C-alpha cells in the first residue's frame, strides 16, 4: 500500500501512475524526413503593353528527369462566371510547385468571384494584386512555393502586370519571366522590351551615348518576342518544352492560343 501513496496522484487523465510516461519523442538521428515540396519545372512570362497584357507559359510538367505530362497549363483565368471563368479579365500564372499553384489559384479565384457577388462589380486588377500578396504573405512560414505573375488591364485600360515572390513581395512591371528558365529569358526581355544596353547610334561617344528610350510595344511584336523567348529556352533548358500556352488580355476579353514546342 505504501508504494501506491509514494507515487504522484493522477492528474486529469484516466491513467493511474502515468508519471513514467515519456513526454518527449525518442531522441536520436532522424534518418529520413518528409519534404513537402517538389519542383515541377516549367517557365512563365508576362509582358504588358499600352492596351494589352500577354501572359505565357509552357505546358510541360516535370519531376526530376521525368516528364509527368506534356499538357499541364500554368495559366489560369481568375474571376468571371462559373467553372470556365466566362468573361474573366484577370489571368494568373504560377510556376514552381504545381500543387501549391493549384491551391493558390483556387483561393484567389473564389475570392475574386465572391467579391463580384458581394459588391456587384468585378474586382480591379490592382485590388486583386494586393489580395494575392496578402494570401501569399499569410502563409509566410509555410509558403506556397510558387512564383506568381498576375496580368490584366488597369482602371485606365492600360496593360497591368504584377510579379510576386513566394512570400508575397510584389511589384508592377513591364515584363517579367519566372520559373526554371527565368534566368535565360529575363535578360532577353530586358534588352528587347526595356531596351537595356541599347544606345542611339551616333549620339556621342563613351558617357555621352544616349540610351534608347523604352516605349510600349505593339501587340504582334510582343507575341513574336514571347515565342522567340520560349523556343530559345526550350533549346537550353530540359524542364521547358512540349507546348506554349498564351493568354492575351485586351478590352475585348481574353484570347487564348496554343503553340507546339519541341518535345525532346
Amino acid at each position, binding site marked *: *500500500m*505504501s*508504494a*501506491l501513496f509514494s*507515487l504522484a*496522484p*493522477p492528474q486529469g*487523465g*484516466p*491513467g*493511474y*501512475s*502515468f508519471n*513514467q*510516461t*515519456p*513526454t*518527449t*519523442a525518442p531522441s536520436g538521428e*532522424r*534518418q*529520413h*524526413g*518528409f519534404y*513537402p*515540396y*517538389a519542383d*515541377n519545372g516549367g517557365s512563365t512570362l508576362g509582358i504588358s503593353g499600352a492596351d494589352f497584357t500577354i501572359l505565357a507559359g509552357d505546358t510541360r*510538367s516535370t*519531376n526530376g528527369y*521525368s516528364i*509527368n*505530362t*506534356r*499538357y*499541364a497549363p500554368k495559366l489560369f483565368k481568375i474571376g468571371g462566371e462559373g467553372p470556365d471563368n466566362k468573361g474573366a479579365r484577370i489571368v494568373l500564372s504560377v510556376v514552381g*510547385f*504545381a*500543387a501549391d499553384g*493549384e*491551391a493558390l489559384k483556387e483561393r484567389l479565384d473564389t475570392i475574386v468571384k465572391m467579391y463580384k457577388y458581394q459588391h456587384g462589380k468585378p474586382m480591379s486588377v490592382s485590388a486583386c494584386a494586393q489580395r494575392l500578396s496578402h494570401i501569399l504573405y499569410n502563409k509566410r512560414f*509555410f509558403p506556397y512555393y510558387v512564383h506568381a505573375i498576375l496580368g490584366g488591364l488597369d482602371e485606365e485600360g492600360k496593360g497591368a502586370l504584377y510579379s510576386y515572390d513566394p512570400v508575397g513581395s510584389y511589384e508592377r512591371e513591364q515584363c517579367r519571366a519566372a520559373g526554371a528558365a527565368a534566368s535565360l529569358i529575363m535578360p532577353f526581355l530586358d534588352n528587347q522590351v526595356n531596351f537595356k544596353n541599347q544606345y542611339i547610334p551616333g549620339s556621342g561617344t563613351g558617357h555621352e551615348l544616349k540610351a534608347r528610350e523604352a516605349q510600349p510595344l505593339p501587340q504582334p511584336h510582343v507575341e513574336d518576342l514571347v515565342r522567340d523567348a520560349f523556343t530559345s529556352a526550350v533549346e537550353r533548358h530540359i524542364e521547358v518544352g512540349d507546348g506554349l500556352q498564351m493568354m492575351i488580355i485586351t478590352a475585348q476579353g481574353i484570347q487564348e492560343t496554343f503553340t507546339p514546342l519541341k518535345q525532346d
Partner: protein
Amino acid sequence: MNHLPQAWGRPRDEVYGAYDHSHFQNAGPNQHTQQPIVTGTSVIAAKFKDGVVIAADNLASYGSLARFTDVKRLRKFNSEVVVGFGGDVSDMQYLDRLLNSLDIRENYSSTDTPLNAKNLHTYLAKVMYKRRSDFNPLWNHLLIAGLDGESKPFLASADLLGTTFSAPTLATGFGAHLAQPILRRTLPDEASVANVNKEDAVKLIKECMKVLFYRDARSLDKYSIAIITKEGVELKENEKLENQSWAFAETIRGYGTQVN
C-alpha cells in the same frame, strides 16, 4: 482496497512492481508517417477511344521481401471509376475505407448522378494535399481512371504531395521510367487516343506489365487489370502474365553468375 478508484482491479504495485507504461504513449508527440513500410510498386494506365485500361500487380513488398502476394491494388469505386494505388499499403487501406464511407454517403444523398472519375480525382487530390500540408502524408501515388461528366475517357494522377496531372497514358513508380516510354509510342498525345481500340490498349498494357516484371525487382507476374467503358467496369484480379520469354537473359553479360 484503497481509496483510489483508478487502482482498483489493477495489479498491486507492492506485489508486482510498478507497471511499465512505456508502450502506452498517449502523452508523447503525434507520430506521422516518415516512410512507407509495406509497399506496392507501379500502377500503369492508358486511355483508348471508348474508355481506360488500368493495371497493377498483386504484390505488397516489405522492403525487398515479397511479403504479400495476393493484394488487390485496383479498387472499383462505382460502374465508371477505378482507382489504382502505388506506395504504402496501409495508407491504401485507409483510403479504401475513406472511399467506402464516401460511397455510402453518396448513396444516401438525394443527388441522382453518381460521382464520376473527375469528381473522385478532385476529392482524392484534396485529401492528399491536405495531408501533406499537415505534414502527415498518405504515402501513395494514385491513378484515377474512368469516365468524366461527359462520358469521355478520364485518366489523372494524385501523389503524396498533392501534385496532380493528367495525360493519355500514366504510370507510377518504376512504371514511369519503364512503361511510360512504351505507352507513349502508341499514345503520344490526346489526339491519338481516338485511334486506339480496346483490344490494342489491353495488349499494350499487358506488354508493359511484362516489361515491368522482367525489370522491376519488386514486381510479380500475377496482376489485376480493369477496363472502364460506358458498359461498366470489367475488373479481373487474378491475371497471370502470358508469353514470357527469358531468352534475352542469356545474352546479358557483365553481371550475374556467368564466368565470362
